[in-house]
């Protein structure tokens, strides 16, 4: 695991399978059976075609960095975590999602860097989806 804070995430019936899958080191996202869009963030309908016929599908967990920032000093529980990297990564399946880049020296992070999923799990069972460089994974 990384040394960044984990969180007590509030789940609901729309998002529970996503979080349950993370506990099994799997990235699941809904795919629309009508227009084939991958839905980000998870919800009960497709925001592209408004269909409610979605199926959970395993994603590759691979992507590239779309943009990032090295935060010198965070707020609240993140106060002592800096410098850390916040990034939007583009999943191979399309969506650009917010995450942290972990286990990489911040100054080595760059746009287009290939990354892979880290299922960052604490001893207390809390889990967040983070990413690391493909070369360091």
């Amino acid at each position: 695991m990384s040394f960044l804070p984990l969180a007590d995430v509030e789940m609901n019936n729309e998002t529970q399978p996503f979080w349950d899958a993370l506990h099994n080191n799997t990235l699941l996202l809904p795919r629309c059976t009508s227009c084939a869009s991958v839905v980000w963030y998870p919800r009960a309908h497709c925001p592209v075609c408004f269909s409610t016929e979605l199926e959970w599908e395993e994603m590759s967990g691979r992507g590239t960095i779309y943009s990032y920032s090295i935060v010198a000093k965070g707020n609240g529980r993140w106060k002592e975590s800096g410098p850390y990297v916040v990034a939007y990564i583009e999943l191979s399946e399309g969506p650009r999602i917010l995450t942290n880049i972990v286990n990489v020296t911040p100054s080595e992070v760059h746009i287009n860097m290939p990354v892979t999923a880290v299922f960052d799990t604490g001893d207390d069972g809390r889990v967040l989806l983070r990413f690391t460089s493909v070369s360091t994974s």
Partner: protein
Amino acid sequence: MSVRGKAFIAGAYEHPLRTIPNKTVQQVHAEVAAGALADAGLSFSDVDAYFCAGDAPGFGALSMAEYLGLQLTHIDNTETGGSSYLLHVQHAAEAIAAGHCHVALITLAGLPRSSGAGIGGAGRFGSAPEVPFENFFGLSIVAGYAMAARRHMYEFGTTSAQLAEIKVAAASHAQHNPNAFLQNTVTVEEVLQSKMVADPLHMLDCCVVTDGGGALVVVSPEVARKLSRHSVPVLGTGFAVKHVNNGRIDLTHTGAVVSGPRAFTEAGLSPGDIRYASIYDSFTITVLTTLEDLGFCEKGKGGEFVSGGGLQAPFGKLPFNTDGGGLCNNHPSNRGGITKVIEAVRQLRNEAHPAVQVPNCQFALAHGTGGNLATRMGSATLILGQEV
């Protein structure tokens, strides 16, 4: 239906203080309301419509109507962050044009400095559906804008020195504003050497944190005619929501791509007609991207446009934020917005500081950005004139 010329800004008032200890938020709302009504030559009993956003306490307009003692037939709590108050001007103009009201009061107030809230949004996140997927990664407000700046640099070659030029111009204006929170001029070098907050944004790329507020009074043409004060007509309005669009995030464009052309079309004007622009400046990158999206320069050429004093009053290519803006003067309630309209009104009334007053300022634009740049935002554009 166009609102062009159907509503006038008759009163505008900015709270003179930047630190306001020992007052409540509602009290500051009341103070700026009184200031704007006095500016217009109207009183609280003339108000029949009231507009406020998320900075107002309790039930918003319901709570505030009772607190202020207003008798209302029209209210609006529309909350789009820092762009709320520009959108309120549009909504007030629409309501006036529809005959629902004649005197609309808009207020903003906040005390983030005295309350120790620091920089950040006053947004109502709570149980929003995006929260579990975005709020647990240490994403500060600055970091969100920093990612937009990083991507702009990557796609267009924009530099930190070019972003710094925006702060330099704002500071050169703020030196003439005795109420500005920061009144010192700065150099590009000083911006680049200031502390890195969220790479690539430095401390001096960020707006100030101030207590304060502002208010506007928007009236019908019939009311405006009876007032002795110079009322500024609303000529064009535009608004757009931009969100992540199912993960298709595009960090280098804002909702101004849509709101700008709508406002220009309604006003019958183009960017070349604008003599002064108030551009929402939560961060330097906010200004750069917005200028491009509003059509003041080609996409990706914002860095060149702002360089070499391009934004400096009174003779730059496009004088902007002559009060010193959010970067130097005031960013009350961590959102500002209303201050953008107030300075545009000063310019059109020929009441800006003489050192920064744009000569013959016939048309001005004010633009508000609310939420997070390019990802979950409201963009509001107003075009105002000296006369219809």
